């Protein structure tokens, strides 16, 4: 106390020290997540086999998904409600950070909950029954899966193709593998407090925007715990989905039963009736005819022509808002022109897209210049 009475200014050292301690404490807590544990070396092939052979009685945990795709803010897509943000709507997952809670006891019993600030959207699957619940609008949709389609897991209606679980994301990344990619293992990592091997996929193609894909595989349970996609444009992952907390105990069976609470608007829908509708398949065929690909591997460019009335339908496959708002977004994108014509350009971190004025679309995980070339050669 003497020091403080003689030098009153010295008192300010105490709160300053507290700030410093708290800051370093938080930094250390974050950093310990990237410390290297010592694990025996495993090759990429061994890891892939491990992943294929992983058998789990159950799985539960919290999944955090971050995307920084460089997309413009879409009205009605990125919309967080009020201060605090964090929308729980299923269509909001295209951009920003989202938290999921996941419970699974095999593919027949899964529950996914998208956590919003004061809301939640759940997808509950129990055998043939799939419930989609939204706490914000108090609605529930009941889907009955056709019996023969049982192996197709998680066929609940999904607004986008963004992977929701690490497992799902890893499957997608692995299926995209071919001779175009170098697959290596690079050390180890700690994900959700567990040691994990890192599988690194590097495109051999120099034109693509994808720098590398890192998949962290749990060292003991061989389950993918995290998937990161890096862009050549940024040091931080452009897309990341991973567990922040995970448990391999079998969840309680009551997690997978859903009874719509009173006051809920329940919609019944038969999934089997919906898909083979002849009108739908005809339209899909028509759309597929206009789609061509140019190039191969990571720098494949998809060319398509838009039906005049369905500008909202084809672009990117993730359009949820009404057509007018999407066209508003389109108009807000920078314009470009060249020998290929003129149109609007979207320069994302992982992919680029060009929508020409005469209704053609080019999308690819490449820089816009490659899209221009593909459009010019059309």
């Amino acid at each position, binding site marked *: 106390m003497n020091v403080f009475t003689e030098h009153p200014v010295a008192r300010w050292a105490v*709160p300053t020290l507290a700030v410093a301690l708290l800051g370093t404490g938080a930094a250390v807590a974050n950093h310990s997540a990237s410390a290297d544990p010592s694990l025996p070396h495993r090759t990429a092939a061994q890891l892939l086999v491990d992943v294929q052979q992983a058998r789990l009685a159950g799985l539960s945990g919290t999944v955090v998904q971050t995307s920084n795709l460089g997309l413009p803010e879409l009205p009605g897509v990125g919309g967080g409600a009020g201060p*605090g943000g964090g929308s729980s709507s299923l269509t909001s997952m295209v951009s920003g950070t989202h938290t999921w809670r996941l419970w699974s006891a095999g593919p027949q019993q899964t529950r996914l909950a998208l956590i919003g600030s004061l809301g939640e959207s759940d997808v509950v699957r129990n055998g043939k029954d799939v419930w989609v619940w939204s706490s914000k609008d*108090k609605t529930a949709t009941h889907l009955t899966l056709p019996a023969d389609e049982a192996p197709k897991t998680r066929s609940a209606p999904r607004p986008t193709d963004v992977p929701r679980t690490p497992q799902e994301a890893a499957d997608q990344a692995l299926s995209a593998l071919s001779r175009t990619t170098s697959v290596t293992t690079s050390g180890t990592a700690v994900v959700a407090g567990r040691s994990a091997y890192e599988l690194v996929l590097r495109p051999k193609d120099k034109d693509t925007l994808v720098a590398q894909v890192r998949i962290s595989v749990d060292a003991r349970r061989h389950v993918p715990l995290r998937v990161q996609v890096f862009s050549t444009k940024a040091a931080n992952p452009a897309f990341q989905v991973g567990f922040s907390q995970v448990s391999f105990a079998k969840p309680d069976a009551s997690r997978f039963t859903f009874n719509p609470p009173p006051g*809920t*608007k329940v919609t019944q829908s038969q999934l089997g009736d919906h898909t083979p509708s002849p009108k739908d398949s005809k339209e899909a065929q028509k759309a597929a005819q206009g789609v061509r690909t140019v190039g191969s591997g990571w720098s494949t460019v998809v060319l398509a022509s838009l039906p005049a009335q369905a500008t909202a339908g084809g672009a990117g496959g993730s359009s949820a808002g009404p057509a007018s708002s999407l066209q508003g977004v389109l108009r807000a994108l920078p314009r470009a022109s060249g020998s290929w014509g003129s149109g609007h350009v979207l320069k994302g971190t992982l992919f680029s897209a060009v929508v020409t004025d005469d209704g053609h679309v080019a999308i690819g995980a490449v820089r816009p210049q490659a899209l221009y070339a593909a459009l010019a050669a059309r």
Partner: protein
Amino acid sequence: MSAADVTTPSRRDGVPRPRRALPSTRLLRSELRLIGGRRRNQAGLAVLAVVPVIMAVAVKLSDPTPAGDGPDFFSSITANGLFVPLAALSVEIAMFLPLAMSMLAGDSIAGEANIGTLRYLLTVPVHRTRLLAVKYFSLCLGAIWGVCAVAIPGAVVGVALFGTGPMVTLSGDQIGFASALWRVVLVMLYLSAGLAALGAVGLFISTLTEQPIAAAIALMIFTIVSWIADSVPQLGWLHPWLVVDHWLAFGDLLRNPMAWGNVVQGLLVDGGYAAVFCLAAWARFSAKDITS
């Protein structure tokens, strides 16, 4: 305010005391009497309590609100009366409750300095650190007081008008009344902790000035700027460090099962704010020249 008995007697006589006496609560009791006795504070509590009553009566009198409209939890009120305090808290946590904390914090040091009672308070042989600790403890009690002023009338009116049916959690499950009541209590405690952390900021600001209004406005500005920063996505790196950022995580207590991650994070941030700003208030106040 003769508090000679507050200090521990000198031990120069060499006789060891068999047991240390419990610290006197006289200073705290006097402080709480002051806070509770102020007309403006009583009026403030009444205003806080009126909001849930208005919400409940309005919902009762009108047609059922279409789901998704109105504040959060609004459409659930008709199903379970306990949603009245939750809806009221989610509305008032943004502005009204921080405003109440601003009033209390402004009065705590700056108010005393302004009306000239602070120097008399300091003539009492009580260490300045102890005075500050009592001031902060009563601010914490004030935070609980404010939350109770919203939640308890809300729960009483809600249960009276809409009954004690099972509560629908955000996950779509139903839980019984006792379990729902327990969750409301947890939400109240969590929000009180957040407001108490804000109170520490207010206490520090209050030691900087002799104008209670200035201190209250400064804390309100701090709150509003925090909310604004929290809603700007480009400041995402800052969000985990904002005291208001985790307040709405009280919704996590209404899921099934409860999600503790964000709540624990919020409590850690609250604790950090309380520690840093209480120490800053101590550094400022214990070296301050009290001129009025």
